[in-house]
């Protein structure tokens, strides 16, 4: 266990949780706008309005009584994702990649029965996964079709790209690659790889697992040095547009690549974490200050260009 001094972190422009909570979330994220991102259904419809592509919605389940028709609801779909409307941190998400009759196979290969799904949805409805334990709605949506271009950097899951947008300017980005340890989930806490992405090029900068630097994916053994996110400019523009969409000044946009549809907005986060700094090997502070120094209003496209070419 290593310990560094306050000064060392400050020199690296690292920001801590207290700074994030007070100076970023407290100052720029009005509480009244939270539902726009905490409620995934609202995010979806809002994104549709603003022309930001999202995953297709199959169905919503709001009442326990609807569970009796679960069989009928799921009938048309070979694969789907079940997630809580107000979930956070990837909690309560089940990805069914294919099914044989009433046996549902998860991404990990684990088989679930219809009663298993019923129980899971019932838990979602009674608020087990929602922030604050409120009654919740379950969302059933299309599974993101895995884009094989990331096959080298992912184990049994879909990697996603997290872009931090500060007052409309993309300030830092990382790709989260699932591993065996993370059970196919793009969640850094559970052992996914965090890969810092260069804002200008979309190329990988450095990678960490559990805050420790790595060079290769632990399961596929591919070198992250060759990783490059395609359509980088478009991704940044999508993320940047979320600023006007939600009115949140400190925002995390999670994007995924679908084989058929290209980049999709997966979800937004009003309290994005700080692990992205470790993945990038760089603190956020200097970039935030650069954005604060911008005096005139810019459109999403102009902001992206600024972030790509003028940031540091």
């Amino acid at each position, binding site marked *: *266990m*290593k*310990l*560094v*001094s*306050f000064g*060392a*972190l400050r*020199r*690296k422009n*690292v920001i*801590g*949780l*207290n*700074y994030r909570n*007070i*100076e970023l979330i407290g100052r720029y994220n009005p509480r009244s706008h939270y539902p726009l991102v905490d409620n995934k259904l609202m995010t979806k419809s809002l994104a549709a309005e603003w022309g930001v592509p999202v995953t297709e919605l199959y169905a919503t389940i709001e009442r*326990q009584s609807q569970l009796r028709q679960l069989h009928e609801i799921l009938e048309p779909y070979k694969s789907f994702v079940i997630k809580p409307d107000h979930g956070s*941190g990837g*909690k*309560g998400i089940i990805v069914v990649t294919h099914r044989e009759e009433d046996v549902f196979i998860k991404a990990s290969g684990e088989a679930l029965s219809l*009663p298993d799904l019923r*129980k899971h949805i*019932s*838990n979602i409805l*009674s*608020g*087990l*996964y929602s922030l604050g*334990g409120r009654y919740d709605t379950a969302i059933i949506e299309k599974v993101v079709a895995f884009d094989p271009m990331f096959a080298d950097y992912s184990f049994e899951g879909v990697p996603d790209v997290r872009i931090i947008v500060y007052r409309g300017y993309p300030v830092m980005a990382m790709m989260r690659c699932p591993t065996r340890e993370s059970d196919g989930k793009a969640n850094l*806490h*559970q052992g996914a790889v965090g890969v810092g992405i260069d804002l200008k090029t979309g190329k990988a900068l*450095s990678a*960490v697992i559990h*805050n*420790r*630097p790595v060079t290769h994916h632990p399961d596929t053994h591919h070198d992250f040095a060759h990783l490059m996110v395609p359509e980088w400019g478009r991704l940044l523009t999508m993320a940047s547009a979320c600023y006007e969409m939600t009115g949140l000044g400190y925002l995390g946009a999670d994007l995924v690549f679908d084989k058929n549809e290209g980049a999709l907005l997966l979800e937004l986060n009003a309290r994005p974490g700080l692990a992205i*700094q*470790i993945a990038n*090997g*760089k*603190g956020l502070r200097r970039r935030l200050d650069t954005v604060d120094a911008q005096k005139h209003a810019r459109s999403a496209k102009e902001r992206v260009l600024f972030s790509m070419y003028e940031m540091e």
Partner: protein
Amino acid sequence: MISSRLQIFIIAMLLAMSGLFVVWYKVVFLGVPLTPHDKRSVFTVTAEIDLEGEGGPSSVSLRVPTEHKGMKILEREGEAGDFGMTTSTLESGSFLQWSKRKFEGRTKLFYKVTVTPEALYNPKVRSDMGWETQTGYDVTQFWEASEQAAAEGILNDAWEHSADAASLAAQLIAMFNAKMPSDAVKELLAKKNETTVTLITALLAREKIPFRKVRGVLLEDGQKKRRASTLLEVQGENENALFSFKAGRISLPKQFFVWYRGNGPMMTSKGIAKARLRFSVSESKVAASMLSKREALRQGSDFLNFSLDTLPSSQQNAFKKLLLLPIGALVVVIFRILIGVRTMGTFMPVLIALAFIQTTLVSGLLMFFAILSSGLIVRSYLSRLQLLLVARISAVIIVVISIMSVMSIVSFKLGIDEVLKITFFPMIILSWTIERMSILWEEAGGKEAMIQGGGSLIVAIAAFFAMDNSFIRHLTFTFPELLLIVLSLVILIGRYTGYRLSELIRFAPLAER
């Protein structure tokens, strides 16, 4: 527009200052003790009157002391024996009178005053009980001619060597205490029934200098049957000068308890053959908190009248616990914001700490682990039954409470009393903890549940030590205004944007590269 950071700082400072000010005021002016074991000296001054009766109606009247600066009178008590006892307040002062129709033989009467020196105590002294401005009664006019001549000589000498009333008195005292006194002084001292005190006062009266005698006792433990000490106070133009009849000009000794300022007698009697007044002093140490409480209740300082000590004792006990909560909250704030320990819920640790206070720490911890682990086992089984969340958690609580009841009964039969201390309150908190822990377990997995559960426990133990500390208990209850300081601390920490201690580890890989 002041920046919000500055506003916060100003508010926090104002809160802290007002809190500190009230504490300072209470400690310095009201004598509220800062520590629970602070002891103060309390002196019991007993005036003892030996009487020998003549067989007829008798009465004795004793002048009783009034309060004065720096000396607080806590209690007064007279002992009557078979005498009747009354008090009277006259223009010349307050008196206690003992009287009896037929009094023979000997007896003793007592009057006790309990006093404590308190440097800043300043009572309102009734002005009419104060200064006697008229000059003393001139007794020298009845003296023999030679003695009058000697007195005149002494006074002339003193007059020449002095500038005003005070220096004249000083000069007289010096002349009477000289190693080789003049013949005139020797002649006066040879007079029957006269002492330095009576002679000097007689001379001052002859010279028409306003003065009064200050009589009292020195507060020293173990003084027995002493006469009252007499000091002399002479009125000057601007200030009064105090003299010892032996040592000249002095200032009032700190431990000197003034019984009476004035030239009247301390005690008068009628129908009594012999009366003798003596004083004894005994000292005792009393917990200062007791003293100020007693005082507050008896005398009613407006400020302390609003203290929590005036509540009925059951409410007091509730408040004692309630006032500890902010301390626990402060500990949580410090651990979460400054150190970065993750806890279940925000104030769950404080509640767990409160439960520990009721059960004591070690048995509380044992119970906590025993019940928590059995509760989690039950939960994991219940989760297989596909119950709805609310029903499942309710079931866990019911099972946990049954476990506790069984544990209590079994341990009682085994003769272990500790378990019985888990009463209503800790039981609710434990059940709730299990609920939170189970939810966390399902939401974030066992590892996160352990991290947050362990964090909560660490914070709870820290909060327990803070809240169980007798000094802190005393402070929070005696000085509720300290809450203002706690509040200002919490507000200040709430604006802390620096790194948490845990982030020094978390971001360590970042700083190295």
